Structures are given as C-alpha cells and as structure tokens.
C-alpha cells in the first residue's frame, strides 16, 4: 500500500470506530434525558434506577466516543493538511463551531451531570442532561455541515488557488446536508433504542427479578426504535434528491449502499410490522427474545456501511469536483509515518474499544444493582435522614 492508501485506511478505521460509539451516544442521550425527566417529575425509584442504569451504559460508551474523537480532530492536520490549505477558510468554520462551542458545552454539562448527582438542585441536574443532548445534536450538525461541504461545496468560490467562503447560509442549507442530518439522528435514535430492546430482552430471557424495570425499558425501546427507523428511512430516501449523478455508479460505493438500503428496509419491516404491533406481549413472549438480542448489533453495522457508501461514493474527490483525495494529503507525509501512527492508533483504540464493549456487556449482565453513576448521592441520602 502506498502512503495515500495508508492515510485513507487510517481515516476509515478511526472514523468507523468513532462512529460506532457516537451513533449510540446520539441515540441514548435523548432516551436517558426522557427517563431523567420522568424521574424528576414522578420521584419514583423505578425511574431513578432506569436513569442511573441506562445513564451508566451511556457514559461508559461516551468514554470511547471522546477518545476516538480526539484522534479524528487532529488527523485533519496530521494527514490531510492539503484540505485545510485549499479549503480551510470554509471547511474550518463548521469544525471550529463543533469543537469550540458544541463539544465544549457538551463536555462541561456532562461533567456536571455525572458528578453533580445529589449536589445540584433537582431541576438544574435535569437541565444538564437535556443540555448534553442538545449540544450533542449540535455537534452532529456541524460535523454534517463540514462533511456535506465535501460532498457538495456550496457557499464558496475559488480565489487565488484557494476556496473562499462567500455564503455561510449556503453551507447550512446545503442539499447534501438537510436530509442527511436528520437521517443520522434517526439512525442514532434507532441504534440506541435497539440497545434498550436487546439488553432488556437478554434480562427478561434470563428470568430477571427486575421484570417491571426491563418490561418498561423494552417497550420504550420498541417505541423509540419505531420512530427512529421511520425517520432514518424517510430522510434516507429523500437524500437521493441531492445526490450528484454518477456518485454510486462504481461497485465500491454501490455495494455498501445497497447493503444499507436492503438491510434498512428489512429492519423497518421487522420493527414496524412485528415489534411495534406486539409491543404489549413482547416482554412476556420469551421465544422472541433471542431474535431481539440478535438484532442489537445490526444497526451499528448498517451505520458503518452507510458511511462507507457516502465516503467511497465521493472518490476520488476529497471535495466534489474541486480537490482530489490525493491532493489533500499532507505534502511530505511518508508511508513510514502513517504506518507507525496507524498501528499506534488502531492498536490502542481497538483495544480500548474491546474493553469498553466488555464493560457494557458486563453492566447489562449485572443489571441495575450496585451502579456507579449516582452512587455518591446514594451514600449521602441516609446520612441526611439520620
């Protein structure tokens, strides 16, 4: 492999790893926020335990989202400085918005939510998780703005060999963006909901004593999955309005595209015509649980395949019909440099990803007893009442 292939492989590997965790973050954030809202409203211990259990799953997953994201952010400057040299004045703006505003706030509010348990007033604590959700969505929005600019460079003109920003509004109303952004949010919601469904099915299958806890979680998952897959599919098909001619002509992009579409259609059939109508009896019908468990990883795979279709379809362009991927490579980058960093990043992040999934699986297996999230507040409460 030459240096270009290696740099592309590095971006694909770290990017896919990043999105595996991000897609779940995007889906679980609003679901945990809804659980927290019901807890704040009702004060019921059941809702509190749901918030803590699914919240802990959410934050364990979040850890890998952060660390893989750090590598993504710096990779542009490491491997693809040709992109910022040519289009940084345009492409840099949404990336700056994402890191400087959206992620900055998301991280700060998440810290307040995790460590403010029992410290913050009830409604202020609730506000934190909604702010985390809103800023996570904002992060996704600006990343999609940046990516959509690569797909369809709107709002910029060539001046002196570099692209210059002329119309920021055009960047935000890019035809490659307006349907892909809700498509991504829908896919996130669907993925998060299917994790609720699969994990609850696992516990119910094992005849858990937490019947009410996992029955409610499973039903919430089915409902959210139905909304999620509906949004994903609708906005998925609408995207074809804005796809440039010939983008999916080659096999490399057409194959992932058709896998995603066929898989998505099939999933929609299962969710809307099997799971949703049976929502009342699914928690009791134990024979369905192995199917529900087996479905859990499928949305993750679909999400990665979807990105492969979108990104491979753009080849050989980094910026559609403006800048090739080869020209975007950092000048002077050698195969040795990329190989060394590729091995380092993939080995470390890959290992951490495995550890993270083991921790998530362990949490699901152990159920909602003895949770870390909110444990400090738990110890404080008896002291106050005595």
């Amino acid at each position, binding site marked *: 492999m030459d240096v270009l292939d290696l740099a592309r492989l590095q971006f694909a590997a770290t990017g896919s790893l990043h999105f595996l965790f991000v897609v779940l973050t995007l889906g679980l954030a609003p679901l945990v926020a809804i659980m927290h809202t019901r807890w704040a409203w009702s004060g019921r211990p059941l809702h509190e335990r749901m918030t803590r259990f699914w919240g802990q799953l959410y*934050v*364990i997953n979040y*850890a890998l989202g952060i*660390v893989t994201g*750090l*590598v993504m*952010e*710096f990779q*542009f*400057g*490491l491997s693809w*400085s040709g992109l*910022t*040299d040519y289009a*940084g*004045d345009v*492409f*840099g*703006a949404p*990336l*700056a*918005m*994402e890191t*400087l*505003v959206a*992620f*900055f*706030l998301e*991280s*700060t*509010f*998440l*810290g*307040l939510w*995790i*460590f*403010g348990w029992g*410290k913050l007033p009830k409604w202020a604590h609730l506000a934190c998780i909604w702010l985390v959700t809103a800023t996570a969505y904002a992060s996704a929005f600006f990343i999609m703005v940046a990516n959509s600019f690569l797909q369809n460079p709107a709002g910029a003109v060539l001046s002196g060999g570099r692209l210059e*920003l*002329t119309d*920021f509004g055009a960047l935000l109303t890019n035809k490659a963006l307006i349907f892909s952004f809700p498509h991504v949010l829908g896919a996130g919601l669907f993925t998060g909901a299917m994790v609720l469904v699969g994990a609850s099915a696992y516990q119910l299958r094992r005849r858990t004593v937490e019947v009410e806890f996992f029955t409610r979680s499973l039903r919430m998952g089915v409902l959210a999955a139905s909304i999620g897959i509906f949004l994903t599919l609708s906005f998925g098909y609408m995207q074809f309005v804005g796809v440039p001619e010939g983008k999916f002509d080659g096999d490399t992009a057409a194959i992932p595209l058709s896998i995603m579409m066929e898989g998505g259609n099939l999933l929609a059939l299962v969710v809307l015509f099997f799971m949703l109508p049976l929502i009342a009896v699914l928690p009791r019908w134990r024979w369905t649980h192995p199917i529900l468990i087996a479905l859990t990883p499928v949305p993750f795979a679909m999400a990665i395949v979807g990105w492969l279709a979108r990104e491979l379809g753009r080849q050989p362009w980094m910026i559609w019909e403006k800048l090739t991927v080869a020209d975007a490579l950092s000048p*002077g*980058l050698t195969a040795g*440099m990329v190989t*060394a*960093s590729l091995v*380092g*990043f993939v080995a*470390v*992040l890959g290992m*951490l990803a495995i*550890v993270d999934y083991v*921790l998530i699986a*362990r949490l699901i297996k152990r159920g909602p007893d003895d949770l*870390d*999230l909110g*444990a*400090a507040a738990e*110890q*404080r409460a008896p002291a106050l009442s005595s």
Partner: protein
Amino acid sequence: MELIWYAVFAVLLAGYFALEGFDLGVGLLLPVLGRTGEDRDRMVAAVAPFVLANEVWLVAVAGTLVGAYPLLEGEVLFGLYPLVVGMLLAWVVRDAGLWFRRRIDGPVWRRFWDLMITAGSLGLSFGWGVALYAAATGFASSPLHPLGLLLGVVVTLLFAFHGWTFLAWRAPGFAGATRPGRALLGTGLLAALPAIAVLAGGMGHLLDHSAPTATLSVLSLMVLPFAPIMLGAQVWTWRTFRPGKAANRIPSFF
C-alpha cells in the same frame, strides 16, 4: 478582528495549561502521594468533576486553530507529527484510565489504570514542553533538542506543583497542607507561563496567518454569542464542586 481571534486562541491555550495542568499534575502525583488504593481514589475523586470541563479547552484550541488559522494547522500538527501522535495516545490512555479505573472492582484492574493515568499525564506534560520549544523555534529544531527536553521537564514539574496545590485547596490536609484559592490561581498562572511566553513571541506570526475577514466574521458571529454561556458553564462547574468536607468523597464516578 484578527486581534479578537488571537485573544481567543491565547486565552484558550493559556487556560488549558492553567486548568488541565492540575489534572495532569494530580495524575503525575498518583504514585507519589497515593501509596494506598484508597488514597489514589481520593486524589482522582478530587479532580474528577473538573476533568471533562478542563480537557475540552484543548479541543477548543484545535478548533480555533483550524477555524481561524487554517494554514497554520497543518504546519503545526504536521511539523510535530511524531510528537502529536505520541501526545494524542498519551491523552487517550490518560482518559481511558479515568473512565475505566472504577468500572471493575479489584486492586489489579484499578492499579493498572492508575498507572495508565500517570503514564498518560507524564507523556502529555513532557510532550507539551517539547512542543512549545519546537513552536518557539518555528519547528526548525530537532524534537530531541536538549532545551526542548529541558522545557519538558520544567512543564512536568510545574504541572505537578500545580496539581499538589489543587489537592491542598480542594482536599485540605490530604497532601499535608491546605492552600487557599489564591494559591491555586498563582500556580495556575505559573503553569500557563510557558504557553503565554510562546503565544507572546508568536503573536506576529499568528496575526499574519489569520483566516480572511469573511471567515473570521462568520466565526465571530457564530461563536462569540455563545461565549457567555461557555463561561457560565465553566463557572457553574467551579461553584458546584468548590472545596468542602466531601470534596474528595468516594465513591466518585471516576
């Protein structure tokens, strides 16, 4: 306009050193002051509520670099390629240590991740000294220049001192001392000094390489209205987790 964005960049980078400096410092001190597992738990619990709000300053620095200085972004990151890769891996390992250390009970598991926190903190602190020296010399010097390595040691020691002061402020008596908030502010400034010096020296170069006015206007319009909210969120963190009897209470999530 260029001056505003220079100020934003400078405040973010200096702020990162002053804030994340004590997180890294406490990470460095884990094997020194945290002889028992419970001591290490208390040290991590003391910094835990601040880490997420602190490390994100560097994410914002990188965002400003790509948004306001797109031409410098490649120059800086590519110019320091092996160092940036190493520091990124150190950052990743440090974060993983924090997130993972309490997820499984057992002394071996926790000791391993505590070691990762220290190793990551060391890599980042030392790396910053080397990186600042390289930036000050326009990336012309060898990354192994003795002065760069010396600055790496200096930054590491400054961060460790800052971390010690933080512990003495937030968990009075734990490290054998109690320090007021003013002392923490002082060591914060001290920790940021190397970054401030390089920023001051590089002012002209940064201003010359600013993005065009159209880009900076858009950035200003989009970012500056949120500045009070960002500042407010940071102040909220500091007010919520100021020192008290239970400042290093365990169990903490990290």
